[in-house]
């Protein structure tokens, strides 16, 4: 079980402190699947990065299985069983896909190169390819997901796994995330996709760096849809007013 307690995060940008997250309280239980959703820039990835230790929270605690891990680095958290598939995975000149998967296997308890096939890439075609610009955005993204599957951590955080992935592979991706989820695994998916929001046990809506709503998909999904539609209508009306006042 992974908990974020009273998390505040400020990041320094050009010598100014920008508030990113405020008063985040979330618990992710073993055996459950969660979706973090919300508008662009609302802080979803920052929540994931605080959990992974990539960002260090300004105040608050990160607790994993009863142990406070707030001061632990990224590597130590990974070894304890937290894993994160990046929204924008970096590229590595010269490093073959095979090497990346082997590094992911290093601290895992046994997966195999089947993970590539699981996400729709033929191992024979991809194991020797290098993780550089010769791979498309969609390929890099699928390899990133395969890497997290290979790592097989207890807490799996997928950051917009569907981004850049074609529609055919998307179905397969949902299947593999769902089928690899176990009773002792916690799966957290940052996503805007209705299909993903429909497959999880709980949806968390992040807005303006804080938890706006959370609950089961039956109760929360209609509200999210309505809220999204409202804000869209409001934005549109605002725009109309601006245009109306604008002398042409």
């Amino acid at each position, binding site marked *: 079980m992974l908990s974020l307690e009273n998390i505040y995060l400020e990041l320094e940008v050009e010598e100014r402190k920008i508030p990113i997250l405020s008063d985040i309280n979330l618990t992710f239980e073993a055996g459950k699947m969660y979706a973090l959703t919300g508008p662009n820039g609302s802080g979803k990835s920052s929540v994931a990065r605080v959990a*992974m230790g*990539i960002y260090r929270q300004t105040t608050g605690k990160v607790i994993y299985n009863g142990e406070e891990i707030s001061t632990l*680095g*990224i*590597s130590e958290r*990974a*070894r304890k069983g937290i*894993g*994160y598939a*990046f929204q*924008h*995975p*970096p590229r*590595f*000149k*010269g*490093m*073959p896909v095979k*090497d990346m998967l082997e*590094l*992911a296997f*290093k*601290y895992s308890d046994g997966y195999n190169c089947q993970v590539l096939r699981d996400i729709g890439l033929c191992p024979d075609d991809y194991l020797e390819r*290098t993780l550089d610009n010769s791979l498309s955005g969609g390929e890099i993204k699928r390899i990133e997901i395969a*890497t997290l599957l290979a*790592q097989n951590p207890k807490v799996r955080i997928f950051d917009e796994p569907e981004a850049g992935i074609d529609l055919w592979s998307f179905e397969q991706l949902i299947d593999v995330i769902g089928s690899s989820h176990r009773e002792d695994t916690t799966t957290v998916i940052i996503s805007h996709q209705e299909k993903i929001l429909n497959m999880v046990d709980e949806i968390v809506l992040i807005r303006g760096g804080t938890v706006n709503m959370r609950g089961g998909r039956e109760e929360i999904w209609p509200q999210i849809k309505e809220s999204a539609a409202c804000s869209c209508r409001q934005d549109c009306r605002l725009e109309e007013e601006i245009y109306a006042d604008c002398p042409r």
Partner: protein
Amino acid sequence: MLTALDKKLLEEIADLHGEPPGAFNIRKDGQGIERRSLEGIEINPKKDQPGIEVIVAPGKEGTVHIPVIMTETNQSDLVYNNIDIGAEASITLVAGCGIHNPGSGSAQHDGIHEIHVRKGARLIYTEKHFGEGDQGGKRVLNPKTVLYVEEGAYAELELVQIKGVDQTSRVTEAEVKAGGRLVMYERLLTDGNQFADSDVLVKLMGEESTARIVSRSVAQGSSSQKFYPRLLAYGPGRGHVECDSIIMDQATVRSVPEIWAENSEAELVHEAAIGKIAGEQLIKLMSLGLTEEEAEEAIISGFLK
């Protein structure tokens, strides 16, 4: 008779475990110590200057090892090797130099290779450099390779220097005739106060002659590196130069690729980049459980692969 140290050096530079397969010549501390010719692959010592001649008969296929090892301090070894790969032959040639400098004096090897790859022949050439020694004596390697790739021939050069060489000034010159293809991979790592210069001049002489030069380097500590890859097309050839360096600590890297066309049908491209290891790369590998040092190591070894 090869000693344990000789065997270790041979393993480092040529992946050899004992006597090489195929034709070979092993040079140790300025002397040829073991040599084997085969039918169609003649290796002979030169009469007028130090070094060997390797003559491969047309159409011959095989492997040739010509490693150099140095195990003494205060020595300088200069050799002139001529290599002739006959038309339509297909040869893998493993050169390279390993220095174990046991003292505080310097140990230097300057190997000058002239290689002809005749019409339609194929050459895969590997040259690895390695140095070691704990008494402070310098390990210096200055190779010069002059390559002639004739019509329809193919030459692939892999030039590697990963560890322990204090100074190197490498010169590589090549002429590629019509329909000839040259691929050159250079991989280099320097550390401490080491420096490495690499000067490359490839001339594309005729129609459909192509060249690809890929240079990857890592500069650590206070080391310095300079690259001058130049690609010159006299005819309608195609060429690509790519220089990519990871810079760390207090190191310096200069990279000056040049492309030069003397024909309006020529197509030449160069790319050069110098940069540190990206933070996101380190974070990604650390999120797999690697420490920062292990992540750095994995990124560098992948980059130099």
